[in-house]
Each structure stands twice: as C-alpha cells, then as structure tokens.
C-alpha cells in the first residue's frame, strides 16, 4: 500500500488547481533535477520546470485521472527537457555550459575544500564521459542519477521495460568504468 501523496489528496478533496499546486510543492525539485540531468544548465532547467507545469495546467483535466502523478510529471519533464535540448542542439557535442559546471549549483556534502575541488573535477570528467555515451544508455544513466526515481519509474518515463533499463544501466556503467580505468593507467 503506497502512502497518499499531497497530489493524490488534492485530487480527492480539492479542485484541479489545488492538485496542480500540490504537484508543484511536492515534485518541483524532481522535475528540476530531471530537466537539469538533460540540459546541464541551471537557467534552462528552471525554464523547463516552469514549462512542464504550464503544460500540466494546460492539460489539467487529465491530472484527475492520473494514478501516479510523480511518474506522469517525470515523463512530461523528460519530454520537455529533451525537446529543449534538441532545439538548442545540445546533442551535437558537449556544450560550453556543460563544461563549466558552476560549483555553486551543487550541494556539497564533502567536508573539506580539497574534497570539494576533487568532486567538481570528478563531475566534469564524468559529464564528459556521459555525454560521449550512446543516446539510449545516456538517457537511462542520466535519469538514474535523479535520486527520486526508481528503476521502474525510469522504465515508465522512457517507455521501456525494467529489464532493459537495468541492462542499459549496467552497460553504461561498464563503459564508464573502462574509461575511468584507462585514465588511471
């Protein structure tokens, strides 16, 4: 039995607007992270987040019949982010924004400044390697870095099976490990 979310309560009790407001409160960060995972740029990610919720407002009547608002929103956010990235030609190569990952955008769990610097370097390196991955593997890996999403939810967002998501994730990790190992040699 799943716990009732704010959105589901609003769906049952309040109006459609209440449900959308609840969705904003509950899932805005998830939507932002999904958008950021694709766009790798703070401003674009925020714009994509806003566009996602505007789309939700436009198709608000559908929200009443949605069983899992989180996955539904994640799907819309993913689509919006991918559309934006295509529009701006993010897929061509690693963009400048991607290379210059501002350290302020990351919550630093690392204790020392040295670790923080290392962490940033690590992230930049990883960003490079991930952007070089084939598209299907890259999509799965990017969504897997969003904490809130499980494998089943990633599968729903991408419209594929859980098994395929797992195998793609495994392949992506293998490729990344190979690249990292080659760096160490």
């Amino acid at each position, binding site marked *: 039995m799943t716990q009732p979310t704010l959105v589901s309560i609003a769906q049952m009790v309040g109006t459609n*607007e209440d449900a959308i407001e609840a969705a904003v409160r509950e899932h805005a960060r998830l939507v932002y992270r999904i958008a950021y995972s694709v766009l790798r740029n703070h401003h674009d990610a925020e714009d994509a987040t806003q566009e996602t919720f505007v789309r939700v407002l436009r198709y608000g009547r559908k929200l009443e019949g949605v069983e899992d608002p989180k996955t539904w929103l994640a799907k819309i956010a993913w689509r919006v982010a991918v559309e934006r990235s295509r529009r701006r030609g993010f897929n061509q190569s690693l963009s400048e924004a991607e290379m210059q990952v501002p350290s302020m955008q990351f919550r630093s*769990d690392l204790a020392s400044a040295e670790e923080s610097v290392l962490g940033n370097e690590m992230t930049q390196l990883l960003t490079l390697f991930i952007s070089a991955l084939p598209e299907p593997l890259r999509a799965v890996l990017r969504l*897997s*870095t969003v904490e809130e999403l499980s494998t089943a939810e990633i599968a729903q967002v991408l419209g594929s099976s859980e098994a395929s998501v797992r195998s793609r994730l495994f392949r992506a990790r293998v490729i990344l*490990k190979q690249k990292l190992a080659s760096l160490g040699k």
Partner: protein
Amino acid sequence: MKDQNQDRLDDWLDKALRQYGNVQPRIGLEGRVAATLEVARRRSATRKRWGLCVGTAAAVCVISTFIWKDSNSPQPVGNTVHNFSTQLPKDATPKIPGVHKTKKSGISNAANNTRRNSRNPGIRTAASPRLSEFPAVRPLSQQEQLLRAYVNQFPKQAALIALEQAQREKELQALYTENSTDSEQER
C-alpha cells in the same frame, strides 16, 4: 587485487554519479513556478473572455444581418406566399405558338423536332421563337387578377386612383429634383 580495484572503481563511480545528479535548484523554485502558473492561468482566462466576447459579437452580427436581410426582402401582399408555378391550372400552361404545330405544319425543322421528341417525348420544343410575342404570354398573377376585377367593378374609382398616383409621383419627382439641386448648390 583486481577485485579490489573493481570495487574501488565502483565506489568511485557511485560517488561521482551521486555528485553528478545531486543538483539543487535556487531557493524559491516552487514560488517562481507557482507565480508562472498564476500568470498562465490569468492569461488563459483573459483569452477565454476575449474569445467569448468575439464569439458573441460575431453571433450578434450574423443574427442582425439575417434579420435585416429578412426585413428588406420583398414580401407578397397577402399573408400567404404563392408559388405561381405550382398554382397554375393545368390547362393554363403558356401556349407558345409553334410548339404544338410542329407536327401539323410542314416546316422544314419539323423532322428534326420529331426526332428529338422521339428521344424525349416529355419535352416539346418550338421550331423557332416568335419574337413578336416575347416575353411569352403568361397567366395573370393573383394580384393582377384582383386589380383587374377591381377595375372592372369600379372603373371610375380606379381611374381616380390612377390619376392620384400619377400626380403623387410627379410631386415626388419634383421634390427629389429640388432637393438634389439644393444639395449641389450647398456644395
């Protein structure tokens, strides 16, 4: 040793991926999104209102045009609209000379007509139009019949009315010409 290295690499990758995905939006994202939604909501409401206004105006225009056209269209004097084509008596169909004579008369086109008539027996065409009787003779309409009956019954009154009408028309024409000359002079 190799397994240890693999484990270390796995750990490092996990940590790096966590770092990669650990992004926090600027403070107040929810508020900004809510504000954008409010603006979008207002905009859509305004658009709906405008659409309603435009739709209503268009509907009013269409209805008023329809009414205006309906009131300006010429109407029959009586209460009922008569369809003269259906009201005509069967024997009162216009008799165009030559139509029935084609077979009897020995005109050169007769053979041609009979050939056509044999193909379509319902239609009979005249050999040639008689321009002296153009337009073709047709029975009087109901109004005309009524007028004729009135004139037959009260010839004096009818003559007086006709005179009155003629005078009235002359007066109107004079008035119209005066007005037009005045307006030209003003210019």
